[in-house]
């Protein structure tokens, strides 16, 4: 039986990651965010793993839509990968309505056979 290559695995996990975010699924994040995870969002805030999970558990945060496109994955040895993608979303986050297109870079690390996100950082795409 053929096993998915790391880039394929990361592409699947990347989609799962955003799907979990849409569904406010904190358990997925708990399992797939590395300890020491950091998120830099497109309005310049930092979030730790705990902050990120609390945000997912916050019932006031509501996602209307979210789509990943132009996903590319580069691997560096057997244990590190970086994905780049565009994310278009419409959501109510911490009491602020945000509908925008951002470009993101996520760093994935292979933690004893399980790929986990070590960092994500997004920034606004100019003119979108």
């Amino acid at each position, binding site marked *: 039986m053929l096993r998915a290559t790391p880039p394929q695995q990361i592409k699947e996990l990347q989609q799962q990651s955003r799907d979990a975010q849409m569904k406010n699924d904190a358990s997925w994040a708990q399992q797939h965010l590395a300890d020491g995870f950091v998120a830099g969002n497109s309005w310049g805030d930092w979030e730790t793993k705990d902050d990120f999970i609390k945000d997912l558990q916050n019932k006031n945060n509501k996602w209307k839509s979210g789509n990943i496109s132009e996903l590319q994955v580069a691997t560096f040895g057997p244990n590190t990968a970086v994905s780049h993608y565009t994310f278009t979303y419409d959501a109510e986050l911490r009491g602020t309505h945000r509908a925008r297109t951002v470009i*993101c870079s996520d*760093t994935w690390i292979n933690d004893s056979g399980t790929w986990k996100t070590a960092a994500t*950082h997004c*920034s606004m795409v*100019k003119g979108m």
Partner: protein
Amino acid sequence: MKRTWMWCLVVLLSLGSAALSQDSTAGSGTEKAVAALEQQWLQSQKTNNPDLVAPLLADKFVNTARDGKVTGKADSLAAAKATKYDAVAYDDVKVTAFGSAAIATGDFKAKGTDSSRKPLDTHERFTDTWVKMPNGQWQCVASHQSSIEM
């Protein structure tokens, strides 16, 4: 027999403890090494000398700028050469090690002239992904910046 078993246990526990402390030391060594490379990057900007940062970037390096523009190593270095900084500062730089990778985050403030010769006055946050290469050298494989909304 039991005594022999106990000695084996003591030796195993000592080895385990040594291995853990080695990991911990390696972690702090990684953090120091990457923090020093971030300072070299800052120095390259302070002195407007991109030659200092060139060896720090992996061949597959990708930069994502605060406006969403994505560039590879050659274009990033060309932009660095065309940018003239009057003042640059990094603040709150933190490095977290993940085995053969490390994440550096921080604040970046700069004034000067950008690569298209427009005035530059920016306050950003950055995430840099560093990887230990097969030759033992740490190189940055990705850098991502976003503007801080005021």
